C-alpha cells in the first residue's frame, strides 16, 4: 500500500468506537427507563379505579 491510510483508518476507528460506545450507553439507559416506566405503571394501576 504506497499511500499509507493507517492514520485515516485509526482516526475513523476511534470516531466510530466513540459513536458505538455512546450508542450502547444510550441503549442501556433506554432499557433502564423502560423498566422504570413499567414499574411506575404497575405501581399506579393496581389502585382500584375510582368513580
Amino acid at each position, binding site marked *: *500500500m504506497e*499511500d499509507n*491510510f493507517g492514520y*485515516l*483508518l485509526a482516526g*475513523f*476507528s476511534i470516531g*466510530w468506537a466513540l459513536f*458505538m460506545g455512546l*450508542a*450502547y450507553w*444510550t*441503549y*442501556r439507559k*433506554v*432499557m*433502564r*427507563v*423502560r*423498566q*422504570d*416506566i413499567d*414499574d*411506575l*405503571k404497575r*405501581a*399506579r394501576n393496581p*389502585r382500584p379505579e*375510582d368513580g
Partner: protein
Amino acid sequence: MNEAKPIKAESTRSIVPRLTWLDGLFWVTAIAIFVDLYLIFLWVPKEAIQGNVQRIFYFHLPAAWIAYLAFFLVFLFGIFHLKTRNPKWDHYAYSAAELGVVFTSVTIVTGIIWAKPIFGVWWVWDARLTTTALLWLVYVGYLMVGAYAVSGDKASRLRSAVGILGFAVVPINYLSVSLWDTVHIEPIVIGGDDTFLSADMRLTLYFSLATFTALFVFLLVVRIMLRESEAAVEELDQERETALS
C-alpha cells in the same frame, strides 16, 4: 379526591436490565464496522480514475440506500397509522423519519465532499443528489410537525399524511430533476450502479451496506423504544394531572 400516593421507585430487580437480542445485534454491528473500515481504507484497490477520493463512495451509497429505506418505512408506517389509528405506528414512523434525516444528511455531506475534488464546486445539481436533498427538506418539515406534539392525535395523523406524500414525490422528483439536470456526470462518480465496479469493490460495497443496515436497525429499535417511553411518560403525566384535579 384522594391525594395520588407518592411513588417510591425502589427497584427490587438487578441494577443491569437483562440482555436482549439487541445486545447481540450491537456487537455484530460494532465488529462489522471495524471490518468495514479496514476494507474501505486498506483492502479495496484504489479506483483508477479518481484515486483514493472515490473511497468515500462506500459511505455515500450505503447511506443513500438506508435513507431511502428509512423513508419507505415512514411511508409504510404512515399508511398503517392512518388505517388503524394505533399510535404505535406513529412512534415507529417518527423514529424512522428521524434516522432517515440523519442518513440523508450523511449522504448529502459525503456527496458534497466528493464533488469538490472532482468538479471543483461544492454542490452539483445531479438528479440523485437533488432528489435526496428534496427528500431531506420534506422530512425535516415532517419532524417539525412532530416537534409540536408528541402524541397529539390530529398532529400525528397530519404527520403520517406528510410522510406518505413525501415518499410519493420521490419518483416524480427524480423524473423532473433528471429532465432538468444540466450537468451530465457519468454514473460511476456520484452513486452510480455497481456494474462498473470490480469484484473487490462490489464486495466492499455490499459489506458496507450490510453494516449500515445493521446499524440502522439497531438505532431504529432503540429510538422507537425511546419514543414510546416519551409517550408513556406523557401519558403518566396526564394521569397524574387528572388524578390530582
